[in-house]
């Protein structure tokens, strides 16, 4: 009985995932060779080029994978907090041990190789969060239960941003929101994130555009209208009274109508009028929440008031807090600035490279854009360009679908766990891969601002490859042991 339950690690391990992993790593390696290939290049194993070096990283990663599978699965749980503490110390020490590479202090040199501790932090944080949230008595009941998990991801993220100046690596920790969501965090938190991004984009993109009538900006007006709509939605949702929505919407239109009329004689400050409307609606929400004893509505009022301040703060953050290069990346993305020779250069060249691939691509090693080194970082963060140019629409979709299958498989693995902590860890792994895929490909396709994070298993680089291998193979080891857990 016992034997069939625990069995041999090689029988229980999820070979499908390992198969996808091998496909991705191998295809990534081919493309690194393609990206750094310059027509009269030597062999793919030549260590003077990137592909040759990546080969050694891959061998290392395979060995690492095997070792991770051979270790007793309990080890990962036992060591989780200890490793977390050690990782914090290492992250703190990194800036002092690191040498400055283009303003970032995140690389430690160990002899001939440089490693980026932040790449390994993801895995350790995931283990620690899984251990904490997987405790038998743990459950997300109120927001207080989330303080520790948020601290677990927030502390390393802050260290990486402030000390190492690597905003990209730190943003990855946002992926844990999905994990918390799966474990019972309110779905509104995700919506608030969406709202925050939407308000930020609207107020930055349209904040500088003046209204055709009166005074005020398009950005402010749209933000406030959005907030008003949210408030009306919640008021009516709680009330189940449709007619009230019509009255509220009607009165908003009435106010604007009157303002337009007044505008003939006096210049009306439309953004302040809009703020007034949102505040009035918020007060009304407070009133009915007390009247109907629906105290949850108080939060809606609070949220909209907070958002008014937030839209004001956006501009400040954008102008003062963000660094110039980050600001320009966002401006280019939002089409506020054209700068094909400067900040927009990468994005524009990436677009040209991918676009020129057409349906079937130019064929392996035949891309011209990547060869002539028009695309910078073409073998690291912009590796997807090479896929797009040489393998075309078919190849790019293929890669995306393999990734999608990979992530869905990870979710599948997560759901079949009997141990909550393993399930949480599995979700963390899936979310981190999804986040990397989203940000990296979105950036290359010109849909997201340029944030330098690698495409898992594809981008050149030992730290990232090993970091992802660690993440994945620990999960495979834990998963292989699922039968040993008692229900």
């Amino acid at each position, binding site marked *: 009985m016992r034997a069939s339950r625990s069995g041999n690690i090689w029988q229980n391990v999820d070979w499908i995932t390992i198969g996808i992993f091998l496909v991705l790593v191998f295809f990534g390696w081919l493309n690194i060779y393609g990206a750094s290939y310059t027509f009269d290049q030597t062999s793919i194993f030549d260590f003077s080029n990137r592909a040759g070096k990546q080969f050694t990283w891959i061998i290392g990663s395979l060995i690492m994978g095997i070792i991770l599978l051979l270790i007793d699965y309990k080890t990962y749980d036992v060591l989780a907090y200890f490793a977390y503490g050690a990782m914090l110390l290492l992250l703190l020490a990194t800036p002092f041990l690191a040498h400055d590479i283009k303003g970032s202090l995140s690389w430690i040199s160990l002899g001939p190789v440089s490693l980026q501790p932040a790449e390994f932090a993801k895995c350790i944080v995931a283990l620690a969060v899984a251990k904490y949230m997987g405790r038998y008595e743990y459950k997300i009941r109120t927001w207080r239960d989330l303080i520790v998990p948020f601290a677990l991801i927030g502390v390393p993220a802050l260290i990486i941003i402030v000390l190492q100046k690597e905003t990209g690596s730190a943003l990855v920790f946002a992926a844990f929101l999905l994990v918390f*969501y799966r474990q019972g965090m309110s779905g509104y938190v995700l919506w608030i994130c969406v709202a925050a991004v939407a308000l930020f984009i609207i107020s930055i993109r349209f904040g500088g555009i003046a209204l055709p009538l009166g005074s005020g900006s398009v950005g402010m007006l749209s933000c406030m209208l959005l907030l008003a709509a949210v408030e009306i939605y919640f008021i009516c949702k709680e009330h189940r009274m449709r007619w009230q929505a019509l009255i509220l919407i009607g009165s908003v239109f009435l106010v604007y109508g009157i303002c337009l009329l007044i505008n003939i004689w006096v210049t009306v400050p439309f953004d302040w009028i809009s703020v007034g409307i949102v505040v009035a609606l918020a007060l009304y929400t407070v009133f009915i929440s007390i009247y109907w004893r629906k105290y949850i509505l108080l939060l809606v009022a609070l949220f909209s008031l907070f958002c008014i301040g937030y839209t004001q703060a956006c501009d400040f953050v954008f102008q003062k807090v963000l660094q110039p290069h980050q600001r320009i990346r966002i401006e280019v993305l939002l089409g506020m600035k054209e700068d*094909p020779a400067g900040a927009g250069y990468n994005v524009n060249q990436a*677009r040209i490279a991918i*676009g020129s691939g057409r349906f079937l691509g130019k064929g392996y090693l035949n891309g011209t854009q990547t060869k002539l080194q028009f695309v910078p970082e073409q073998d690291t963060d912009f590796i997807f360009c090479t896929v797009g140019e040489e393998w075309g629409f078919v190849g790019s979709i293929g890669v995306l679908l393999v990734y999608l299958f990979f992530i869905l498989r990870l979710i599948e693995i997560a759901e079949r766990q*009997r141990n909550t902590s393993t399930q949480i860890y599995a979700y963390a792994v899936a979310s981190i891969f999804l986040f990397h895929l989203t940000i990296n490909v979105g950036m290359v396709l010109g849909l997201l601002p340029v944030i330098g994070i690698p495409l898992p298993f594809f981008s050149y680089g030992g730290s990232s490859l090993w970091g992802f291998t660690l993440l994945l193979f620990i999960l495979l080891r834990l998963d292989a042991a699922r039968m040993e857990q008692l229900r």
Partner: protein
Amino acid sequence: MINDQFYRRRYVISGIAVLIVLVYIVRLFYLQIIDQSTKDQADNNALVKHIIYPSRGLIYDRNGELLVFNQPIYEITMTMREMGKDWDTTAFCRCLDISREEFDERLVEIKDRRKNRGYSRWTPQVFMSQLKKEDIATLQEELFLFPGVDIQKRTLRDYTYKAAAHVLGSVGEVSQNDIDRDDYYIRGDYSGRDGLERTYEKQLRGEKGIEVLMRDVKGRIQGSYQDGELDRTAKAGTDLYTTLDIRLQMLAEELLAGKIGSAVAIEPKTGEILALVSNPGWNPKVLVGKERSKNYNKLLHDPTKPLMNRATQAMYPPGSTFKTIQSLVCLEQGAITPNTLYPCSGPGSTPIKCTHHHGSPVALDRAIEQSCNPYFWCAFRDLLNRDKDIHKPYEKWRNAVMQFGLGQKFTDTDLAEQSSGSIPSTQLYDKFYGKDGWKAITIRSLSIGQGEILVTPLQLANQAACIANEGYYISPHLNKNDSMRIHRHNLDIHKHHFEVVKEGMNRVMIYGTGRHYAVDSLHMAGKTGTAQNPHGRDHAIFIGFAPVEDPQIAVAVVVENAGFGATWACPVASMMIEQYLTGEVKRRDLRRRIGETVLNESVKKW
């Protein structure tokens, strides 16, 4: 999971993943299938950034004399891929006057990826660099015969005078380190490596321009992109006006020839450095262009260490010149008054003997004039013995001395490569002798500027400026446009104390050790010093300023292993003062004699 009320959320998360991939597929469909513009751009109009190098800022002296300028040089580049089969190598070699073997050798070098990591057949590779206009004239006329060959113009530094090499510094190729640290640089760029060229690199380098050009699949340039709308013209570097007086600088270099030493002159009121000389130096022209690395290596291995800027980096005991500071500190802290008398028995005095014969007892002005060692020992002793514990008065004395800029680097200045010198701390003596193991007598050498105390020539000149200014200095600096008034450092010493010290220093030049080299009409004040040197002959030192009533120049001169300060350092300083105040040196014989004397055989002229 049992009782998992959030089970359905797995579909939300899976849905998010599917949605994102779908959005990206739609975007890919748009970019790769629908949008036709990218295909044309990629096939026909690939963009190239062509860099235009700005001319580096010029460097002038305080009177607007041009010191450093640019000369054009040329670079021949080759794009291997464009060189067809019938490319005429023989004709090409004839144009450049090189042999076929040299050509082949160079080609092998270019193609060797270990040496030339950025090699590609598709991009221009440097074939020969740093060529003069004459060298490329023939090739330029026949350039059309050689597809793939291009001539790129760059600039090199050139110098009007063979002087001030240490101060001006040099320009060389950037290191990998620079490239990592500053995005502005790419491999093969030049930047200031030392001296002013390095300090003011950002100002002098200007801003590279960019031409965005279209090139076809074969890499051939088709013209400018969007009619040059995206081009950025190069911005020339900003010129630098220095505080140097090149005539004074050259005179000092001439006078120090054949000797190891340095001279620093400062305008006391402004802290502007008029001359900063370290000998041996080199002709700045030797560290330019093709010869740079070869010559640099030679300079590096010269036993007299010409690359070291002795004026700011070498440290010497100040010797008797320190007595000026000693007087001021003792006066301020009340150990002596101008009328205090101490006895001196000449060479028979203990514990420190006097090197001069003069009347006894002496007052302060005469003590400075005659550089009386026993006087300053007694004053120092009385200062330190006012407290049972020597630590407190010694700390107080040390702090007062450090106000003059000694024992520390000037931090608020544009001078690179300084040494801090040293004013020994109580901790040092505690460590050496034990906490109660040292008394005034133990550290008696300090009273006459010997022992553990070390200063740089720059600090000596600044010390002279402090006295000239009667109680303040402005950090010595080299940029004329930099208003350094805010860098004024006030000394905590009463103005009236300076009168007697100035009087003493004036008497040095009339009756004392400096009398042979004074020019009466210039009203000089000075103090000689002879620093004992355990490794060889004494170092000759002199500090001074003139005119006494309204000082225009403060000077410090150090000549290593030359013996008495009065014999070697004083005449150099005196002539420098004369040159600066009157515009010429009337004492021609003296000038020739000092300039032509070789005190150190191994000093080479570079």
